[in-house]
């Protein structure tokens, strides 16, 4: 597994990019109802670094304060949930799925189990598996041709319409 730093990530559209300048610690999933609704999913997958080892390298986070104590950062342009930070804490967590290589960070704990969904334990055994390219080849090809997702690596520029920047990053 790639051990290189910084570890980079960002939102789907690429308007917000970040770098972690230390190996993130405390990787976990949180089932609490606040994390579920913030992520629109079964749980929030998070891992953290010291605040001074987290750098926004492009754009800026939009912040929703889910309480006076917690800032949830996301991309205003595409919605990707990106960060979780307790006000005043010297740590910040990023969403594992927003990492360019989410395989690198395996969660080690699960929190908020009072909110855990009844079917979570069956996650590994959901039947009817399909592969994107085989599921609907025509649709997959159309998505591939007009994909607006930022690639899983740094780029020298970003265009909101998904078009390629020129050599100067414009």
């Amino acid at each position: 597994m790639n051990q290189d730093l910084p570890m980079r990530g960002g939102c789907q559209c690429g308007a917000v990019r970040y770098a972690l300048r230390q190996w993130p610690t405390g990787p976990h999933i949180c089932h609490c109802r606040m994390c579920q609704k913030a992520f629109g999913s079964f749980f929030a997958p998070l891992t953290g670094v010291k605040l001074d080892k987290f750098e926004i390298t492009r754009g800026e986070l939009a912040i929703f304060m889910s309480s006076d104590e917690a800032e949830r950062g996301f991309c205003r342009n595409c919605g990707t949930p990106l960060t979780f930070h307790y006000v005043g804490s010297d740590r910040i967590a990023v969403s594992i799925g927003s990492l360019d290589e989410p395989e690198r960070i395996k969660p080690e704990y699960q929190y908020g189990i009072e909110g855990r969904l009844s079917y979570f334990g069956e996650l590994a055994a959901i039947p009817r598996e399909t592969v994107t390219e085989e599921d609907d080849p025509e649709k997959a090809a159309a998505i591939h041709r007009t994909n607006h997702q930022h690639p899983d690596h740094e780029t020298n520029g970003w265009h909101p319409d998904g078009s390629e920047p020129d050599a100067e990053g414009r």
Partner: protein
Amino acid sequence: MPDINITGGCQCGAVRYAVHETPFQIGICHCRMCQKAAGAPFVASFTVKKANLEWTRGLPAVFKSSTNMERGFCKDCGTPLFNNWVPSEVIHPTVGSLDDPNAVRPEGQMGTESRVAWLADIVALPEMSTDDAFKGYEDLAAEIVATNRQHPDHDTSVWPPKQ
């Protein structure tokens, strides 16, 4: 519309919806586009006809992740709300945005070419409740409860509540 009213919305409550149909094709998608859109190992969604999805408060913002794929979210809090293949007559709201996500049960998984290697292991991770995790931090937990801005898991006539 059928006499079904299943509600959901974003974390902050600026966007609320109701579906007037029993959800079908409930599943998770591991593809790399869904992962990055959700900031998570997969998107969990269900399916209803577009005609049976009603926006009852506010409207979602949309990012077109490709020309015909709209990903809806709340521009005020970021909650991912749906995937929409524009030419289709059905739409796929996110399971976690439902007020009662236990009401649907995933029955399929897509995009398995991108499934993270650790996915099967997370069901057996050491576990802790929120109350236990906040032992020694009871003041912080109380402050979160006292200032919680998350919309409740049911419709409200006014939101945020008037002070």
